[in-house]
């Protein structure tokens, strides 16, 4: 039982980080489908810096910073240049995944997977699992209990009203997207440096897209999204445990995704996205 709960948490943690990043960015009005790329760049940068410095903490910090920069890139594209956000997010994924693949050759002299580097270890793994849950609560309190959170939500619901009230929606959106990128990168740092000690091409393996689903399933609410990620994690853990010879493994492997789909179809009908989510804002001034 403890094994099962732990496996659920391990499986859910990277998705939680990425989903929290998605919630923050979408609450401010920027759709972020670049979460997958942000996970990858967080993982890759973390491993590279850890390799160069021999210091896992420095690597983790650099990974988070890289995610923030990638988030800021999306933020600038979405606000200053009013680029279609789905296209920009797709571009972010291409740049990050392709860049990391190329970076492996440059930094490690070998494509595909990095060398093993100094990592955060099992202690770091446990800390990051707990931190994900704490971050979810903090983000929830921030969004719904503070003035700053109100500003973020206002920009996502009605940026014109927010601007009239003296808030700069473009600035808020930029900061929210950059911070969201940092959160998503934490998911990558967890994968590459807490669970493992290397970066490997494609290791994000769709977790950023599961996180996108968790954002919707969780109704753009940090605790809801965390619950959705845990739901996905629990079904993955179940799948791992129940797989055995005799039952087609493809069927079992599809279980978490089918469960997510059913849940989305069942609950998401009542969910409502922030009114101005994904709509570029043209300031009055």
């Amino acid at each position, binding site marked *: 039982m403890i094994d099962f709960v732990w496996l659920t948490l391990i499986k859910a943690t990277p998705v939680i980080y990425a989903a929290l990043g998605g919630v923050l960015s979408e609450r401010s009005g920027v759709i972020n489908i670049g979460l997958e790329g942000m996970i990858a760049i967080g993982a890759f940068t973390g491993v590279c810096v850890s390799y160069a410095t021999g210091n896992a903490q420095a690597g983790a910090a650099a990974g988070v910073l890289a995610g923030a920069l990638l988030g800021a890139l999306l933020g600038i594209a979405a606000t200053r240049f009013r680029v279609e956000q789905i296209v920009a997010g797709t571009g972010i994924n291409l*740049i990050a995944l392709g860049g990391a693949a190329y970076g492996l050759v440059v930094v490690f002299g070998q494509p595909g997977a990095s060398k093993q580097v100094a990592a955060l270890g099992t202690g770091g793994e446990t800390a990051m699992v707990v931190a994900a849950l704490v971050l979810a609560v903090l983000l929830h309190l921030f969004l719904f209990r503070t003035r700053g959170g109100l500003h973020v939500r206002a920009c996502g619901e009605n940026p014109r009203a927010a601007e009239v009230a003296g808030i700069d929606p473009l600035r808020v959106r930029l900061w929210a997207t950059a911070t969201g990128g940092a959160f998503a990168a934490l998911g990558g740092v967890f994968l590459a440096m807490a669970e493992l000690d290397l970066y490997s091409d494609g290791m994000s393996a769709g977790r950023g897209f599961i996180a996108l689903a968790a954002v919707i399933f969780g109704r753009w609410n940090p605790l809801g999204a965390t619950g959705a990620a845990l739901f996905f994690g629990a079904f993955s853990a179940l799948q791992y445990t129940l797989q*055995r010879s005799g039952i087609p*493994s*493809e069927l079992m492997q599809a279980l978490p995704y089918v469960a997510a789909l059913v849940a989305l179809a069942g609950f998401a009908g009542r969910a409502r996205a922030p009114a101005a989510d994904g709509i570029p804002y043209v300031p009055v001034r």
Partner: protein
Amino acid sequence: MIARAAFCLTSALVACCVVLGGCGRSTSQGKVKVGMVTDVGGLGDRSFNDSAYAGLVACKSRARAQIQVLQSKSAADYQPNLTVLATERFAEIFAIGFLMNKDLSEVARRFGDRSFAIVDAVVDAPNVESVTFKEEDGSFLAGALAALVTKTKSVAFLGGMDIPLLRKFEAGFAAGTREIDPTTKVLVKYVGSFDDVAAGKELTGVLYDQGADIVYAAAGKAGLGAIEEAKQRAGRYVIGVDSNQDGLAPGKVLTSMVKRVDNAVLRVCRDAVAGKRPSGHIVLGLAQDGVGLTDFRYTKIAIGEANIARIARIRNAIVDGKIVPPSTREELERFKPVPAP
């Protein structure tokens, strides 16, 4: 408006450079051009694709060929990659992986005057050399070794994807354990991906928790995760696959079931440089040194001399045809252990 256009253009350029830069890798010098298209696992898997690449590099140094590798990011890249090499007049073009089966048939038909080779699949065309391995032979030895070493009477197979190729590993492994001790439990799980390293680690953890103390990981890069998990557990081992992975975690990787894709690539490559045309289908088993176990460099003490000698005897029995390892689940059900040599 101009700023916006410039931004878009720059982003697009950066994306292009990154994507193109990521997949092309060429090495110059030499005369005969030999090309290779990797499978989606790609270079750096320390396994199948890397082994093929090692063969290509050997071909460059020993046969003085000019080599080029194109990596496939998805199955949609196979045909374009193969076509690029075919139009650029490569003397021999390697398709690494059974997934390229259909695409290679088509490209080989369009470019009838080029020579191709495919590893792990059989393409019936006059200008294609097919190379396959008897993975069940090597896996049988891995299974026998696992059954000899296990202390929990329970071992496990972790595959990348549940496909016929991987079932050859699974069937051979399970039969190998039966050869030693039919009561040894064999757990079987599949990752569903060759890339998801974290999932490979998590599943290996589950297998250890369910009682297995040795996991035979035939899962590409996901197998690296299996090795990571073994490092954190006392008394637990992994058996690596395709390339020699023993050094990735000395003492924790009991052995590796190596598939000498490098030798196969070098062999076909030399023929190409010498101007020979493809000769059809090559099957490489234990007898041809196409598959086999490593030299137990870091695990001799854990395994023990007597067991190593026993594995050598079983190997000879397979080479002599006294034992025929099963290559499918159906054959595995019918498999009867031969009185132990």
